């Protein structure tokens, strides 16, 4: 009994201590604040069709963290921390899903870019075909000009025949003068004057033929000038015709004056002997006029030969235009305001290297062949790099690359005074530097061949 009276108060003390301990360590469970909001945020992410499936691992982690955050905790600090972690993990899952979504979009953007580039190339080919058509039209114009020149040569021939006829008229007039001794001196002088006019007209014909030759040379360079000179030739031929007609009229006047002089036969009889000698001289002059007409005919024949040569030159020009087009097509040259730009192979240099890869050598040999074939063209070489490394280093590297190409062209026999080279560094990328493919395209050398100088055409 003694034992029980002592143990009862002891048990009460133990119970009180235990109750004190539970009240200290184990307050009533706290419902986590913010757990509902985090669950709502997770649900929104999971119901977004663009993002729901794009970051499965991060989403799984976020779901686990939200589940932990929803467990009631006795300690408020633990509950708050769990909600905080769940909230950030949901944010991480959303961010990773958006990143993946952007990366997936990139494929589509790259396809759009490829399509745009293809359209651009197609457009350039169309422009090239348009230029070819214009060149064909210009050739047709030149053919027409050659035909006009031929017609002018025919006109010059006709004018030479007229000169011959006038020379015949002068002969006749000289014969009349011989028959009429009294007037002979006067008439002989007239005949001499007519022969002089005929000579002048023959000289005009020669000048016409020269003008035709000049115009045949000129229309190759400038169509408008050729047409103008042809018009001038025609005008001069008309003037020659007019002067020949004048000579005929003068011959008629001379005949009239010879008829008048017949009445004064007595006066002239005393100088008949002298006149006979002078008539002989007039004969000689008429023969000279005939010879002049022959020379005019020869010069007309020469004009025709030159027109043939002009035809041949036009054909050569057509062939050289086709050859030029062919060479440019082989090099995939791109026409610009400054000239034809040839981008030498996307794979011509390795990273940080200035040595040529063998794959670009055929392209460079074509450039050498082109420059040898067209010695009036000059060439500008510009080197470019990607954005790896410092800009100073890249500037030096691009200079070395441009110089490598210059040295290669020089070794191929191109005069170094026709070549300029410069390094442009990383300043003008043609492609995205984020991908290795883009950087490869940026490591390049552009060779710009100047347009043909206008004077050489």
């Amino acid at each position, binding site marked *: 009994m003694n034992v029980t009276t002592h143990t009862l108060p002891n048990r009460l003390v133990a119970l009180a201590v235990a109750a004190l301990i539970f009240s200290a360590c184990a307050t009533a469970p706290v419902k986590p604040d913010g757990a509902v909001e985090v669950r709502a945020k997770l649900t929104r992410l999971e119901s977004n069709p663009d993002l729901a499936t794009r970051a499965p691992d991060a989403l799984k982690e976020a779901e686990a963290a939200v589940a932990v955050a929803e467990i009631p905790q006795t300690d408020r600090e633990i509950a708050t*921390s769990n909600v905080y972690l769940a909230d950030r993990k949901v944010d991480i899952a959303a961010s990773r899903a958006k990143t993946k979504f952007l990366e997936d979009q990139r494929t589509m953007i790259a396809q759009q870019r490829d399509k745009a580039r293809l359209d651009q190339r197609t457009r350039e080919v169309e422009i090239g075909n348009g230029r070819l058509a214009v060149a064909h039209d210009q050739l047709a114009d030149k053919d027409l000009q050659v035909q006009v020149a031929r017609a002018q040569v025919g006109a010059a021939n006709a004018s030479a025949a007229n000169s011959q006829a006038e020379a015949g008229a002068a002969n006749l007039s000289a014969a009349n003068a011989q028959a009429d001794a009294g007037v002979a001196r006067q008439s002989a002088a007239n005949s001499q004057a007519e022969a002089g006019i005929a000579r002048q007209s023959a000289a005009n014909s020669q000048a016409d033929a020269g003008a035709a030759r000049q115009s045949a040379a000129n229309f190759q360079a400038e169509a408008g000038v050729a047409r103008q000179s042809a018009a001038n030739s025609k005008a001069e031929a008309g003037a020659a015709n007019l002067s020949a007609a004048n000579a005929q009229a003068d011959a008629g006047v001379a005949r009239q004056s010879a008829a008048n002089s017949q009445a004064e036969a007595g006066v002239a009889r005393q100088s008949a002997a002298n006149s006979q000698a002078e008539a002989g001289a007039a004969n000689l002059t008429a023969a000279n006029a005939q010879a002049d007409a022959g020379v005019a005919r020869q010069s007309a024949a020469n004009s025709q030969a030159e027109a043939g040569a002009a035809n041949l030159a036009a054909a050569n020009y057509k062939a050289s235009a086709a050859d030029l087009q062919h060479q440019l097509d082989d090099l995939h040259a791109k026409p610009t305001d400054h000239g034809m730009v040839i981008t030498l192979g996307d794979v011509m240099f390795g990273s940080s290297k200035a040595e040529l890869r063998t794959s670009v050598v055929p392209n460079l040999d074509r450039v050498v062949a082109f420059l040898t074939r067209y010695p009036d063209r000059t060439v500008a070489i510009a080197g470019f790099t990607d954005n790896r490394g410092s800009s100073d280093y890249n500037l030096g590297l691009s200079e070395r690359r441009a110089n490598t190409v210059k040295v290669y062209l020089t070794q191929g026999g191109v005069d170094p005074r026709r070549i300029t080279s410069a390094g442009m560094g990383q300043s003008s990328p043609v492609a995205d530097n984020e991908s290795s493919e883009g950087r490869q395209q940026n490591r390049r050398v552009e060779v710009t061949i100047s347009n043909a100088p206008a004077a050489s055409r």
Partner: protein
Amino acid sequence: MRSHTNPSLSRGLGGLPTCAVLAILAVLAACASTPPPPTAQLTAARTAIGDAEKADAGRYAAPELTEARNKLTDANAAVGQEHMETGGRLAEQSRVEADLAMSKTAEAKAASVNDEMLRSNAAIVEEMQRKAGAQP
């Protein structure tokens, strides 16, 4: 007689019964022991912040990076006051915040690459239209 054979066991500690002594010991072990410092969590948080800084998070996700750094400072302060569990939780929060800064940085970079590509596409199309206008 049994209680007299070993009196010091039943009333040895200030007269308290054995079960009470055991309960107090258990409570002391559960509530008042000093756990080891959360070294692993602190290291993980520092590493995550370093990774985010290397990825240029200071430019793309500055608020998140700042909060991660603040949480790490708080964690170190808590550990210094021997609040090891609070320090461990703050270190874990710091690490997750730094992970978020990292994710946001990657997202911002991906967005800027896409923008750049779209701009480049627009430039190609514009150039083509200009050429078409100049030489119809």
